[in-house]
């Protein structure tokens, strides 16, 4: 097995075949839970970091209950890091002034940056966890059964495939380069342009061949997952418990409450 570096999103699909309590939950329920989570995370204001913290509970619990190894997942979260930092890093520069948080004066810019980063981290992790516990095909089927238009789901699936294919091609190209440039770290700047060009061409080619293979086997834009299981009582309970937790975390400032409680007990 060559599990070097990028070795692809497909590792996530491997994980999706584990058989744990979380994996057995109905795809639609997991999809809705994830969407609810994303909604709640995003709904917090830009200076609200404290109230956001309890939500970390969700990915942590799902991660451990689903027996998903943290490292490969975090690695993938890190791919998204440049994007997150790129978006957030301007804030400390653009935003002036201070806010008082628990008696501390903090710069608004840095606060926004922190909350943006935390939000992105949470949303990306939740999305990856959904794929790792459900599998992309099932997520797609769930989207379809919720009435999301076929074309949109198809686009999503093909993009996902494309990313895996791109990862594989990147790896191949880097390997070929490294073999012909021994003792050199990374890729020389001069080679970057042509390399990226090649990569794009090859990836598009390959993605097209994969798509052809799908068409040859009767693919007409609709993914047919396996058996369409019913939503069980356990599934419902799973979704509702998380929903309840998200609601509480949204309405109450749990860290502040806890703080008040402990302080209250002290004094």
């Amino acid at each position, binding site marked *: 097995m060559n599990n070097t570096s990028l070795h692809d999103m*497909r590792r996530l699909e491997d994980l999706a075949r584990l058989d744990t309590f979380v994996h057995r939950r109905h795809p639609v329920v997991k999809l809705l839970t994830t969407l609810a989570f994303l909604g709640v995370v995003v709904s917090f204001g830009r200076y609200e970091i404290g109230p956001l913290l309890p939500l970390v509970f969700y990915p942590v619990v799902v991660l451990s209950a689903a027996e998903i190894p943290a490292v490969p997942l975090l690695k993938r979260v890190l791919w998204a890091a440049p994007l997150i930092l790129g978006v957030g890093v301007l804030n400390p520069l653009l935003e002036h002034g201070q806010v008082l948080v628990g008696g501390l004066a903090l710069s608004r810019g840095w606060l926004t940056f922190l909350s943006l980063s935390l939000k992105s981290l949470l949303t990306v992790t939740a999305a990856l966890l959904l794929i790792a516990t459900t599998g992309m095909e099932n997520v797609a089927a769930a989207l379809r059964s919720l009435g999301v238009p076929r074309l949109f789901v198809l686009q999503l699936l093909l993009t996902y*495939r494309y990313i895996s294919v791109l990862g594989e091609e990147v790896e191949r190209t880097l390997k070929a380069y490294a073999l012909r440039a021994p003792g050199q770290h990374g890729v020389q700047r001069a080679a970057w342009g042509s390399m990226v060009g090649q990569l794009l061409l090859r990836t598009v080619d390959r993605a097209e061949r994969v798509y*052809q293979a799908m068409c*040859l*086997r009767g*693919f007409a834009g609709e993914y047919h997952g396996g058996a369409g299981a019913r939503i069980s009582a356990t599934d419902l309970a799973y979704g509702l418990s998380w929903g309840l937790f998200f609601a509480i975390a949204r309405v109450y400032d749990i860290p502040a409450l806890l703080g008040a409680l402990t302080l209250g007990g002290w004094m």
Partner: protein
Amino acid sequence: MSHHLVEAIDVYYAYPDGHHALQGISFRISHGESVAVVGANGAGKSTLLMLLLGLMFPARGEVRVGDALVTRKTLPLVRKAMGMVLQDPDDQLFMPTVFDDVAFGPRNAGLDEREVARHAESALQAVGISHLRGRAPFKLSGGEKRAASIATVLSMLPDILVMDEPTAGLDPRARRMVKDLLRGFSHTKIIASHDLELVWELCERTLVLTQGTVAADGPTRQVLGDAALMERCGLEVPYGLRACPQCGFTPATGRPTANA
């Protein structure tokens, strides 16, 4: 369909970059035949197969499968009759498990899940990889991937099997395995390959392509036995299949030639 004919009538194809890949190809293949399409790299083999399955359409001329002209409208019909195994299994296998991949075709055909499982299992069995059903395709060995690719097509119960270089990149044992598999199938077969040993053993008829044209079309023994033709078309006949200069044995006829 009564007779599974595959027919190309004066087919031309040029790639968008202007390269004339096929220039006037005609042939007719009838039910139960095993036909090899041979030719040097770039001769147009893959292009031809893609046209047969309607992945692209001829610039001129026509392709018929069964009673249908291959057009956008008849694609479902054409692809039901004819299954194609792509050259690179990594393109062919895209689902998370071998089973899902083999079940992909039947599911698209709208079979219920019980039927899907039945077709998939029997296809897996036919290529001897039932034990791999739960594995991730991209982790299989070269031979296993090839077997899985073939199963993905068999599960759709095609009448005609089309394969692009089925033994390319395989080690000798995997190659033997694939050959034995193919030999066992009773389908009409169209196999593009430059593995002339495979062609010799499996196909009674051979079509030679060179620069987008048909250089020869006839019984395999006769075609591969034509040293001048092979030379002209950039093909190397393996020693085992050549006439022996000492004893005069020619595999083409199976007996010594008179003028050895």
